[in-house]
């Protein structure tokens, strides 16, 4: 029996098959028809079909042998300026053989590129427009420097509608013969927050257990896949156990590789969701903001967040004293 990751198995193979982002798909199809593509930026939250749209565009454009005309680069793995100088240039400057005179270069997770590398890309893009078109994919277009933005046609991907997600997931459930209760299905929706890749991965992992999927299975799968239990860490600190909280923080960062920005974002949310008196929420928020800024500047994640944990330990003590 053969298996793939369902995210790939059920990834649309052509623009027709993309169920959402109607306006975007329409325009991309018009590019295919005209056999011409401008440089593009695809921006939007994860799991909304950016990469899929770019791949489908290339497939529809070049047909079967599309791989020869396409290069996928990932800025998170190769974010330096060197990659732009060498790999990108080599690929971009040679002319494509065939009906369409240019190739397509997909630069995924482009918001992770250093600004130096982005600057270097500027020239390359201009010089080799004849032979290569760039599709830059990013969560936030804001992290792409202005000069690049102005050279690209922007496409903004939004979260999928409930119906579209439903259609996609139902199709997989049917094809794969997955046994799932309504509560399990609802849970997948709830935890994936509009990220279809996450939903699909969670569904496959839950299905692999070989039981009828209920809500509990889904939560346990997601719980294991998201070790950043920020809430638990905050509770530990508030109880006065700073060392315990720091240990949890360390595990998140070093063992599971959770990003500092993700942790602090969650801390911020949790603090405002908590039962703390408003004055404390504001006090802590002030500290959170400062530390968030420091992290952006590149300070050490663990050291900075530990300082925040110490504040929470203090807040916990003051509160238990009725302060």
């Amino acid at each position, binding site marked *: 029996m053969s298996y793939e990751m369902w995210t790939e198995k059920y990834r649309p193979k052509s623009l027709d098959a993309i169920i959402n982002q109607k306006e975007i798909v329409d325009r991309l199809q018009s590019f295919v028809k005209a056999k011409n593509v401008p440089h593009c930026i695809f921006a939007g939250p994860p799991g909304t079909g950016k990469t899929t749209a770019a791949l489908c565009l290339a497939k529809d454009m070049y047909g079967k042998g599309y791989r020869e005309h396409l290069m996928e680069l990932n800025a998170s793995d190769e974010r330096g300026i060197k990659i732009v100088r060498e790999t990108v240039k080599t690929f971009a400057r040679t002319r494509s053989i065939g009906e369409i005179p240019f190739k397509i270069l997909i630069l995924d997770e482009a918001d992770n590129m250093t600004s130096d590398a982005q600057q270097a890309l500027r020239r390359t893009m201009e010089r080799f427009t004849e032979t290569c078109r760039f599709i830059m994919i990013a969560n936030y277009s804001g992290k792409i420097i202005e000069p690049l933005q102005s050279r690209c046609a922007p496409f903004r991907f939004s979260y999928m509608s409930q119906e579209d997600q439903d259609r996609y997931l139902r199709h997989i459930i049917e094809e794969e013969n997955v046994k799932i209760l309504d509560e399990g299905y609802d849970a997948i929706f709830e935890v994936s927050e509009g990220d279809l890749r996450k939903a699909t991965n969670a569904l496959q992992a839950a299905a*692999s257990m070989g039981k009828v999927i209920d809500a509990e299975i889904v939560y346990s799968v997601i719980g294991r896949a998201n070790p950043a239990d920020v809430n638990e860490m905050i509770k530990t600190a508030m109880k006065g156990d700073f060392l315990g909280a720091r240990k949890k923080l360390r595990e998140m960062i070093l063992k599971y590789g959770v990003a500092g920005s993700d942790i602090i974002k969650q801390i911020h949310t949790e603090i405002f969701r908590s039962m703390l008196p408003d004055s404390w929420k504001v006090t802590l928020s002030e500290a959170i903001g400062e530390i968030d800024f420091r992290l952006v500047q590149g300070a*050490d994640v663990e050291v900075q967040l530990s300082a925040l944990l110490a504040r929470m330990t*203090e807040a916990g003590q003051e509160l238990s004293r009725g302060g």
Partner: protein
Amino acid sequence: MSTTWTQKHKPQTLNEIVGNKDAKQQFITWLKSWSKGIPKKRAAFLHGSPGVGKTVTVETLAKELKMELVEKNASDYRTADAIKRFAGLASQYSTLFGGNRLILLDEVDGIAGKEDRGGVRELTEVLKTTRSPVVLTANDAYNPRFSTIRKYCLIIPFKKPTVRETVSHLKRICIKEGIAADEEALKFIAERSGRDVRSAVNDLQALAQGKKRLVIEDVKWLAGRDRKEIIFDVMRTILYSKDSWEAKKAVSNADVDPDMLFNWIYENTPYHITDPHDLVKAMDYLALADIYRKRIRDTQYWSLLRYVVDFMSSGVAVSRQRTKSSGWIPFRFPEKIRLLSRTKGERALQFAIGMKVRRKCHMSATRSAKEVLPYLKIIFENNPEMAAGLSNWLDLDEDMIEYLAGNKKQTKTIVAKLA
């Protein structure tokens, strides 16, 4: 928690004392000879470098022979007067209860400075006439200051135990503490201590207390006793001196890598500064020091280092306001460095799997490792069939499969299905 391992794991029998077989035998023979009457040499002079087991040999043997041990330390024989005070003891044959008495003058190195020349004369008198065995210990019996005393003593040299002997002692402690320690790690500690058993045990405690396993990475940083001593001294000053200037000076004078020192302070501060209010201050200063470290990295402006030093020394020192001191707390090796080196292999494997996923799933290896790998783990642990299929599809090797499956048995089941 607050007892040192040198105390807790002190040898209970003569056999447990490592090394110096000949010296121990010589000492036993001499001590036993007292039962047949006063021997020619009424005192024994055990000498050798620190931490080779001189004092503990005396203590243990006294216990085994059921002798009453009267221990005197430096302050008791600094002056002639002080010596006269216990000389009386030595003039008696035995204790009231009929047991034999053994008088130990520990660490006599300090005696016979200029101000108490009379002391030596007085001590010589005691050694000549004592009716109970007297034992002296010192690092070097051949120091000229002992020339008069030496004549009346049986000189017993203690040698440093071999590395192997030191390791066997450390091993015994590890077993008692429930620590699985690698031979290599213990050997490293033994060598670095310069075969000073006491110092080796202290190092072992600092490095291994509270752990289940001790590997070479845990101890590698210990690149010499001096360096560790420097770090510990600096930390003692920072965490316990109220004087911020002194704390700052300690850091500035310490010839150790500031980053290393920062990690040590960051690791240990919350164990010693426990009041939440104080801790906030201390951690804030450390966070500030970290900011300046970052600024130095960015600008290569090394003159900014002085602020890093200020915050991590004086800053932490002045934070201690309400915290009460609570006994002896051992210093800990920075967990961060340990975790980084321990998870290095794991992270490399995660990335390698990420690269495999990337080839198939159109996302970066970095993100794959973070976002796809946890789901793969769940699948590999639960569904060998699907796992085998995915292994083929992703082209995973056996190491990767084992990492995802979590154990050997499941790995075998999956691999069996691969064909």
